[in-house]
């Protein structure tokens, strides 16, 4: 009995001391260097070998720039957004029960996306008093023709880091690339990570529908 009582007392004491140490009450000064935050993983690490190969070639073409610098500079929170007309969303995502957003071939599904803050900011700015959006304001904010934004839209948002989604610079060979034909073209593809209107963009591979937030823009 005596031994058990002593053990219980010692156990209680060590718990009290332990808690005090955690609060810093009795802890001696820490002389070790602060641990640097872990380096942010490259989104290309989420790619399969095929997409890693495409990304490597794209980075070589864009050198000394590359996808990692592009993401650090323009997508600091690793969140992307994109817009679709409601008609396209209903016909090609909802009605087909699509698992991934984007244009799919036998290899993967390919989706252009921009920084969430840019898209959401532009959408917010375009809101009108009647609860709809002004295509002209949205077009101007994103450097694209207003006609692309007519009618109800859907805005999608995806956290690339949290969902570990493969992301790289877009390339000429990607499905859906709209090649610029005149210097005045504003909504066509130019290599380098920016739309012809100057908006940052990335190519997202196999963006999962289930993990994407979808908002209606009347």
């Amino acid at each position, binding site marked *: 009995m005596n031994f058990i009582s002593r053990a219980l007392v010692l156990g209680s004491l060590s718990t009290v001391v332990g808690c005090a140490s955690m609060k810093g009450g009795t802890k001696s000064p820490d002389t070790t260097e602060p641990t640097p935050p872990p380096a942010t993983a490259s989104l290309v690490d989420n790619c399969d070998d095929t997409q890693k190969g495409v990304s490597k070639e794209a980075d070589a073409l864009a050198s000394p720039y590359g996808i990692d610098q592009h993401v650090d500079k323009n997508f600091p929170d690793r969140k992307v957004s*994109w*817009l*679709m*007309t409601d*008609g*396209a969303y209903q*016909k*090609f995502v909802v009605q*087909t029960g*699509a698992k991934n957003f*984007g*244009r*799919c*071939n036998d290899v993967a*599904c390919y989706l*252009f*996306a*921009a920084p969430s803050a840019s*898209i959401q900011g532009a959408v917010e700015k375009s809101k009108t008093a009647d609860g709809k959006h002004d295509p002209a304001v949205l077009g101007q904010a*994103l450097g*694209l023709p207003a*006609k*692309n*934004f*007519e*009618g*109800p839209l859907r805005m999608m948002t995806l956290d690339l880091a949290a969902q570990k989604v493969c992301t790289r610079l*877009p390339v000429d060979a990607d*499905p*859906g*690339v*709209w*090649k610029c*034909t005149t210097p005045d073209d504003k*909504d066509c*593809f130019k290599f380098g990570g920016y*739309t012809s209107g100057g*908006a940052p*963009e990335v190519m997202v591979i196999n963006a999962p529908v289930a993990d994407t937030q979808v908002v209606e823009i009347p």
Partner: protein
Amino acid sequence: MSDEEVLLQSPLLYRVLRGRDGALSIEVVVGGIVQFEVRVRLNAEETESFQREGRAFADRMAQAIMANPPFGGRSVKSPV
């Protein structure tokens, strides 16, 4: 719109439709960070090619439209 028959729906984000008058058209999702649909009515030659080759021809035509959405002035934005 509801009177149209969907002849082919592709994961490349296009579909081939037959209208009430029997004419074929192709509806293609174009654009990058903003995606919208355009339609092109198939001419007689394209209709014959689709009937002969099916998806292979439709894939080629859809990709040509994605790469150049005005498609020589033949495309129209799909009705909202």
